[in-house]
């Protein structure tokens, strides 16, 4: 990296970074002498955070949450892309399925959790089922959409080369649908995270959400703050990782767009 690029990079960090630094410093300073029970000094929250999450409670509360989140999301991805690819290849099928899918997508994802509690009780099975069910719909919709709008020239070329339907789907339609599918995956991951937290709030016991809401109910203010901070951080890290994965897997697409 030459000096000029390094300089620019530093400047960008400075410009983006001064506001959060000021905000956190302000919070730290202004809460230092706080005697409001609900807004304890940030320093105390930070000490409690280290006590809770480096790394005493990580295996009990954080790991099960992440396990449910990723299992549920993985199921949603497989089912959403699989079904979406099948439905999307037939224009007729899509017309019949879309109103039903549209209905399920329009229900607030968290509102589905009570339905799964009635059916499955309060354990991990219920949590994973709610997560995968709610997260599958945006993925399904974007896959149908993406597979349907395959470039006509590509389809004609594939016909000329007499590609089998399976190869056509796997090698032409799906790769070309990927930029659209990723939009659905992003929404799906957000929903998976929200439903993970909600299923833990509603089905108490273990998990980061349950830890935080129990702390609230027992007026354990410091623990509640550490839980909320960790959950917020987790939400941000998830979206960050998703962006990186998207950029890495859609590199070819962005390259094409730049050329065009």
């Amino acid at each position, binding site marked *: 990296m030459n000096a000029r690029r390094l300089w620019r990079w530093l400047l960008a960090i400075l410009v983006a970074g001064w506001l959060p630094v000021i905000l956190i410093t302000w919070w730290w300073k202004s809460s230092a002498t706080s005697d409001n029970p609900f807004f304890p000094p940030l320093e105390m929250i930070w000490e409690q955070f280290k006590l809770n999450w480096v790394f005493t409670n990580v295996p009990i509360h954080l790991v099960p949450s992440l396990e449910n989140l990723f299992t549920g999301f993985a199921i949603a991805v497989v089912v959403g892309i699989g079904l979406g690819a099948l439905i999307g290849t037939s224009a007729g099928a899509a017309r019949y399925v879309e109103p039903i899918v549209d*209905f399920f997508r329009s229900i607030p*994802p968290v509102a589905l959790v009570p339905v799964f509690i009635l059916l499955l009780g309060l354990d991990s099975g219920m949590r994973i089922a709610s997560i995968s069910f709610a997260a599958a719909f945006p993925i399904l919709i974007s896959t149908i959409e993406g597979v349907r709008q395959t470039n006509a020239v590509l389809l004609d070329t594939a016909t000329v080369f007499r590609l089998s339907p399976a190869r056509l789907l796997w090698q032409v339609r799906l790769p070309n649908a990927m930029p659209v599918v990723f939009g659905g995956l992003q929404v799906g991951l957000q929903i998976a995270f929200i439903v993970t937290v909600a299923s833990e709030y509603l089905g108490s016991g273990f998990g980061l959400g349950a830890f935080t809401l129990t702390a609230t109910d027992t007026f354990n203010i410091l623990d509640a703050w550490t839980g909320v901070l960790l959950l917020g951080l987790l939400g941000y890290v998830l979206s960050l990782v998703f962006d990186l994965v998207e950029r890495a897997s859609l590199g070819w697409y962005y390259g094409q767009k730049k050329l065009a």
Partner: protein
Amino acid sequence: MPAVLRRIPAGVISTVVALIVWQIIGSVGPLAGDSFATATEAIAALVEFLGQSDFWTAVWQTLQMAIIGLLISVVIAVPLGFLIGLSRFSYRSTKFTFDFLKVIPPIVIIPIAILVIGPDVKMGVVLVVFANTFSMAIQTAYGVRDADPVLLETMRCYRMGLAKQIRYARLPSAAVQIGIALRLAISASLVVSVVAGLVGGAGGLGSLLALTQSSGNADETYAIILFLGIIGVAVSRLLVRTQRRVIFWSGK
């Protein structure tokens, strides 16, 4: 397919088929029992709800949270985003912070909101404001920055002042983005106000749903889900249609 059937819209046919499948699953199929409601049971419970004033009170509470929260977030976010968007420095220095806050789902702050505000309608309003403000401000700022550069250069050549730049270049491009942000925010506000009730006990349809589930009443639980889905579809259809008409110049 007979010609008569072909004239019926696809959506009607698939809805009827879905209702029949739902009925079969719940009455003879794998999910028969008390913890699952069939289509007829859920619809009957919904019809009964529609005749009760308690149900409409809950609907009104949810709407109140959504509407008041939405109005407050528009009043905060649009002017804020507009100011931020006017200078490149302020846009770049707030983008990271707002992006960070934008991706944190409001459900995360519910435990603190319960402590500080208490489980009521006010808390729902705060959650809706938290959910909308940051993304709306970023979107508005983006719209202001997105103004046609050639138009801006031309105006500068003619020495037109900032006021004219805002009026003829910045406002029209910001309006497109504000429209998009508003559409997303309306749907999000409804969802968040239901969640505030369900998880945070803020009242409204969410709290009613929590109540029917915890008392094990499957019919009423499914009736509320059905209602939420129908309202959701209706609102999103209406929004897409309205947006096309209001921001006719953007082609989006």
